């Protein structure tokens, strides 16, 4: 039905809010990144000076390097572990619902909650190191969270724990939708289970691998809560991510133009990952 006046009128508040508070604000932030804004916004355009300063900043380089380590490990481990759990659960096991619920429940919790749990678990003075030593394993050492070069791996551990169940649920939905004829044909031909998975089933999960990658990559770039709760960026600045950098420079260091520039770079990277995927999905939906 062609839209009359009323439908358009009722859609307009949402459309207006999204256009202003998403796209208008993006343009405003892009504009600020080309100014000399410090504590308050300034409106003098000075070109890409903020970006030149930003990429030369040690704190930004640390944040980007951390994000690279974090994203690669987080996506790789959560993806692999999620697929493995999905395959294990797909073996007609008993208590399937119980196992699924256990692997997925961290997704229902705030990252501040799980960050608190992991913060003390990984803390050598009270957590696993202290506990295993008090049980008699005197030489046990696990102090990564207090070590600058290793603390980022603690963020990976907690993030993998939080998200793996979700990846599992995605892959499990994919496994349940697989063409059973090919699987049966392979089995009749005498293929082993591992061969069936490697040659027949996993290749059919391609679209889910792509979706999972896009979702995990975008989660990694947006990660903020977990770092704040787990390490608060420390020790020192060793677990800063671009999200932490942006917040610090904008709100506590009064470098608004630098903060704006850093958020623009975050948006560009997410856009480069999400837009091709989104366009392809939309084209597929239209052709279907």
């Amino acid at each position, binding site marked *: *039905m*062609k839209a009359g006046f009323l*439908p*358009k009128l009722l859609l307009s508040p*949402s459309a207006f*809010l*999204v256009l202003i*508070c*998403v796209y208008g*604000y993006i343009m405003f*932030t892009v504009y*600020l990144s080309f100014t000399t804004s410090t504590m308050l916004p300034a409106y003098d355009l000075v070109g890409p000076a903020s970006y030149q300063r930003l990429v030369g900043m040690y704190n930004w380089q640390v944040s980007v390097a951390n994000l690279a380590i974090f994203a690669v490990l987080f996506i790789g481990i959560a993806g692999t572990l999620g697929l493995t759990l999905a395959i*294990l*659960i797909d*073996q*007609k*096991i008993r208590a399937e619902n119980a196992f699924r*619920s*256990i*692997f997925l*429940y961290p997704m*229902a*919790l*705030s*990252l*501040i*909650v*799980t960050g*608190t*749990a992991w913060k*003390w*678990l990984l803390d050598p003075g*009270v*957590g696993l190191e202290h506990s295993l030593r*008090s049980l008699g394993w005197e030489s046990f050492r696990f102090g990564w969270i207090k070590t600058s070069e290793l603390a980022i791996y603690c963020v990976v551990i907690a993030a993998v724990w939080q998200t793996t*169940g*979700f990846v599992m*649920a995605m892959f499990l939905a994919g496994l349940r939708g*697989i063409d*059973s004829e090919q*699987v*049966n044909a392979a*089995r009749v031909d*005498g293929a*082993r*289970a591992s061969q069936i998975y490697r040659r027949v089933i996993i290749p059919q999960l391609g679209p889910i691998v792509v979706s999972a990658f896009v*979702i995990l990559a*975008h989660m990694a*770039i947006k990660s*903020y809560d977990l770092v704040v709760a787990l390490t608060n960026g420390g020790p020192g600045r060793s677990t800063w991510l*671009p*999200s932490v950098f*942006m*917040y610090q420079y904008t709100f506590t260091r009064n470098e*608004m133009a630098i903060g704006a520039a850093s958020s623009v770079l*975050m948006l560009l990277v*997410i856009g480069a990952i999400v*837009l091709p995927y*989104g366009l392809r999905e*939309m084209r597929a939906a239209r052709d279907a």
Partner: protein
Amino acid sequence: MPDMHVAAGAIAPIGHGSTTGVDVERIALYGLLGVMALLFLMPVYVMVVNSLKPLDEIRTGNLLAFPHHWTIQPWLTAWSTAQIGVQPTGLRPYFINSFLLVVPAVTISTLLGALNGYILTQFRFRGSHLLFAAILFSVFIPFQIVLIPMAMTLGLLRLAGTVTGLVFVNVVYGIGFTTLFFRNYYAAFPVELIRSARIDGAGFFSVLGRVLLPNSAPIIIVTVIWQFTSVWNEFLFAASFSDFSSFPITVALNNLVNSSTGVKEYNVHFAGALVAGLPTLMVYLLSGKYFVRGLMAGSVKG
């Protein structure tokens, strides 16, 4: 183990091409799943047992042990006397703030999502596809990109540092998800039902109120659960736009754990974390199916 896994099924019986060694494989399978399950349960187990111990038992003992002396004192402290703001109020006022935030934010964003989904699927107008794509992409953006202008807007509207301001922000950035959920649901809605209602003279609101909404229970549940979990757990906006009078529970918990001076009361921190986590955990346990469905449909949240 009985041979239930050899039952007929789509791709069920792979994993045991031969009959020998089946039991060993099954035992290994359950063993592996069991170990993984324990690893996944461990952090919550640690939170629960240590929230019921006196502090010196944590310092001298170990985090994995059961309490010797059971006590609910850490819960009482976390709830009503821990120092978070200026006053030693515990988490209670912030827990209440979270409810004052979540109830209107979830209600408004769900209603707008239903309305938008209805209009975007049942009416044709120029630019509707582009508008939907624009709404859809909005759920992917890193919210850092809107923090500065949103802070200025809330200041102009005199909503900075208020729960109302946080309701506004969570509604604005929740519309993308709720619209997506309802649009996909209504796109698959039987056309005949709507057409026959229109032939009977139903107008814009009757179609929505008498035909669509009464048949929308599943998607309403999915949306409410999704929004409840996201808004309750939200931290970035809350940390940026609230103050001591309007902190939601996530910010209060983070302050409790990270800014405590002097003795670190681990047991109180664990009890506080459980207080903050219980509402969403309850929702998850009571409605796991709908939670997973929302997760699958809106799996873009960071």
